[in-house]
């Protein structure tokens, strides 16, 4: 086969001005296709991409799961999932078109002959018009990630001379530093790093990407974006619901693994990173890794001083009485899994030295909100001391990811009247009012990017290892600590110990 060098050919002149860039012909194999993530997110995302004409001309989906199932049954199952969870009403013709490209192979993930069947199917689909790129999406329980990756290599499915082969790996990438390193050893033995796309779906969210746009497309914030002007930063990911039916997963995971190690550290890196030279995948990820490397892994003593973990107890959610965590179905009576975690971290570099960064996340809190609040230092001299007002408050910049996506800046303003009384007012930008268009689901963007080989919004191996290097000492220190866990009432703002952690500052109200 003649290999053509795209460099000599140059860019495709026809893509200039197009919003939707071409996606190479691909056979996408989803392992764990009968699972919850596939039903709720992946299959609906694929439908919406098909609806918008964003899937490549030649596209096939192969579903893999443990149980045997006729292809018709799989298609019926996929149809139900899409109808139930798609963000738009499916167009029957497009849906039928997509279903007709869906295939199914049932085998246990550790059953090597099953991969032979998968290979046969992939090659049969190639026969209809030439080889297609291969993308494997690992949406299974994490213990199967190394099993599947190894088996793909055994079956010779991990590399092809003629087409691109990519492997998308869902979170969690490991459950601690050791397991992440072990998984990485397996993955790098089978795939080159450029072939691996580790998902953190937060990065696919428009509002998360907007953190970078906000910082690097607006010159006015850069001069104050440092230790000289910023007093502290709060990153919050609060949920108002409990663990629902996920006791099995959640009790072995906890808040720290579930949200802090991945999503919240991603937000931290986006807030603290230096401007990349360009928006290329490795340039962006280099800067993110530098931030993570600048956070010294805490000692046991620092863990004790700078972290809080807690469990929710009975309380109220939406006016209704709700159980505490230990009374939830499937949770062991003696569980010490945290449903709330608060951390104080510091980025030890020239820009951020001395600026505390507080992270908190929890289930069954007063309100659902994900936000980054940047608290600036107070003005150096207070000229306005009039009584009868709350006075001059430090400026606060809040980037809200959900539910009211936007940016808010608090400013001091004069209260109308004869005396110089000041109160804070908000200057707000709201996504919902400034862009009336509906944002695509994070998974739509990420699936397309993976098929296109665009890795900017995926986590690189050194990045995920750097994340675990920060979190692992906390996990170990917590495991060794037999003191009773802090608690907080369901529907409250969190445990009192978290208020002590942030003192003399205060958490933003939920």
């Amino acid at each position: 086969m003649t290999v053509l060098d795209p460099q000599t050919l140059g860019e495709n002149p026809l893509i200039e001005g197009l919003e939707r860039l071409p996606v190479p012909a691909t056979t996408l194999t989803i392992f764990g296709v009968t699972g919850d993530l596939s039903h709720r997110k992946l299959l609906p995302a694929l439908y919406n991409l098909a609806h918008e004409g964003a899937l490549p001309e030649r596209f096939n989906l192969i579903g893999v799961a443990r149980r045997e199932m006729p292809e018709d049954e799989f298609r019926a199952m996929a149809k139900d999932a899409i109808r139930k969870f798609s963000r738009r009403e499916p167009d029957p013709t497009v849906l039928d078109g997509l279903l007709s490209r869906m295939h199914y192979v049932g085998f246990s993930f550790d059953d090597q002959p099953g991969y032979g069947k998968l290979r046969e199917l992939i090659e049969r689909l190639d026969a209809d018009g030439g080889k297609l790129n291969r993308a494997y999406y690992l949406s299974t329980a994490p213990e199967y990630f190394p099993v599947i990756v190894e088996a793909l290599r055994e079956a010779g499915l991990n590399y092809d001379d003629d087409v691109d082969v990519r492997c998308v790996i869902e979170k969690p990438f490991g459950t601690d530093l050791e397991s992440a390193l072990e998984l990485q050893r397996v993955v790098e033995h089978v795939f080159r790093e450029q072939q691996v796309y580790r998902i953190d779906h937060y990065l696919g969210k428009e509002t998360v990407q907007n953190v970078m746009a906000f910082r690097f497309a607006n010159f006015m914030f850069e001069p104050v974006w440092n230790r000289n002007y910023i007093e502290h930063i709060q990153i919050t990911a609060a949920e108002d619901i409990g663990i629902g039916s996920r006791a099995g997963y959640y009790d072995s995971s906890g808040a720290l693994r579930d949200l802090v190690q991945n999503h919240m550290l991603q937000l931290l890196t986006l807030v603290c990173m230096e401007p990349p030279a360009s928006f290329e995948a490795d340039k962006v990820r280099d800067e993110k890794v530098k931030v993570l490397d600048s956070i010294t892994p805490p000692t046991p003593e620092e863990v004790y001083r700078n972290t809080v973990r807690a469990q929710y107890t009975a309380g109220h959610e939406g006016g209704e009485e709700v159980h505490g965590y230990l009374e939830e179905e499937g949770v062991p009576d003696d569980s010490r899994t945290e449903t709330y975690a608060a951390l104080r971290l510091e980025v030890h570099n020239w820009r951020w030295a001395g600026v505390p960064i507080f992270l908190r996340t929890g289930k069954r809190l007063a309100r659902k909100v994900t936000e980054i609040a940047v608290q600036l230092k107070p003005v150096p001299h207070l000229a306005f001391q009039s009584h009868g007002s709350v006075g001059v408050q430090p400026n606060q910049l809040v980037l809200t990811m959900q539910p009211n996506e936007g940016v808010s800046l608090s400013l001091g303003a004069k209260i109308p009247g004869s005396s110089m009384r000041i109160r804070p007012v908000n200057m707000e930008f709201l996504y919902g009012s400034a862009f009336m268009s509906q944002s695509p689901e994070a998974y739509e963007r990420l699936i397309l990017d993976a098929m296109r080989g665009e890795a900017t919004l995926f986590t690189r191996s050194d990045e995920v290892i750097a994340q675990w290097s920060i979190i692992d000492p906390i996990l170990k220190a917590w495991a060794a600590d037999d003191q009773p866990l802090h608690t907080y009432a369901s529907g409250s703002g969190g445990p009192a110990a978290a208020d002590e952690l942030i003192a003399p500052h205060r958490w933003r109200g939920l």
Partner: protein
Amino acid sequence: MPDDVWREEDTTPAAVEAALRRMFTERHKEERAYVPARVMNMVVIVDREFRGEILNRLRRVGRFHPSRLVLVAVEPGRQRLAATARIGTEDAPKSGSIAVGLERVELLVGERHLTKLDTIVDPLVVSDLATMVWSPHGHQEGVDALRRLAQIVLIDSLDEPDVEAALARADDLSSDTYVVDLAWLRSTPWRERVAASFDAPQRRKDLGKISAVTVRHREDSRAAALLFCGWLGSRLGWEPGAMAHAHGGWRGHARTRKQDIKLTLEPVDQNPPGLAGVTIELASGQAMSLDRAPGGLCARRRERDGTERSWIVMGASRGEGGILGEGVRQALLRDPTYRPALKSAAAMVG
């Protein structure tokens, strides 16, 4: 919560603007979650008798609607201004979320007001937001009057029966405003698919070997077909030649240093406006074509040895409501390829 409405006969722009401000303050007092949309102003000039039809079209644009709509209804012989202003919300606000407000002003004007329409509309648009003008029933003098304050003009080159005049008008508007042409937007899926067909490295070199392009279009959509050919020509560096009417369609050539490219426009029967199909042939005998089909576009590829394959490229039709919504959305983006395509298309009819 119902819309707040204010009406006045024999009014002035200043009175309308004051009423809007007052209604906003009142609304915000009653509904703290109320937030005015701040995307763009849209000024629409219509014949009074067809205003309902245009309002219906605007309702179908979904979430892509402008934040402040100024509908200028032209009533023959009218001497004095009349206005209705209303503010409301798109959806009932959910608990804990914002209620995005929409503002609509309807002005009743006479023809005599059109040449000075800028002095009437200027106080009514939200400052610092982009302003788009759309005039689906003609009234070009009204559009020209607003060019001073508008950054974007929405047109549909298919509305003008004289294709040469349509392209010339679009070119003239492009000189000082950003033109969003619905005829161009209808061809977006076609352009995307053609770009994708030549995107693989082994296919990209074929772009230099194109020998013939045939565009099938609805009878009244020749402007869309020309814009498509203009797009290919401008992107690939072709020198366009004039097309001539022949065999019920239009034929002509474009030139490169190496070869001539045969261009053919074929009118066909179809319901939706715009393109019906595209065939691109290479000197080697290879060809690719796209045609409308249920659930997307039917793609066909003929290889050098004569073997043919076909498949469906999935995609749902946006419908005309969706196209207008896309036009509103595109107003805030910039497509650098439209104007060169327009110039190239104009050379093909000129």
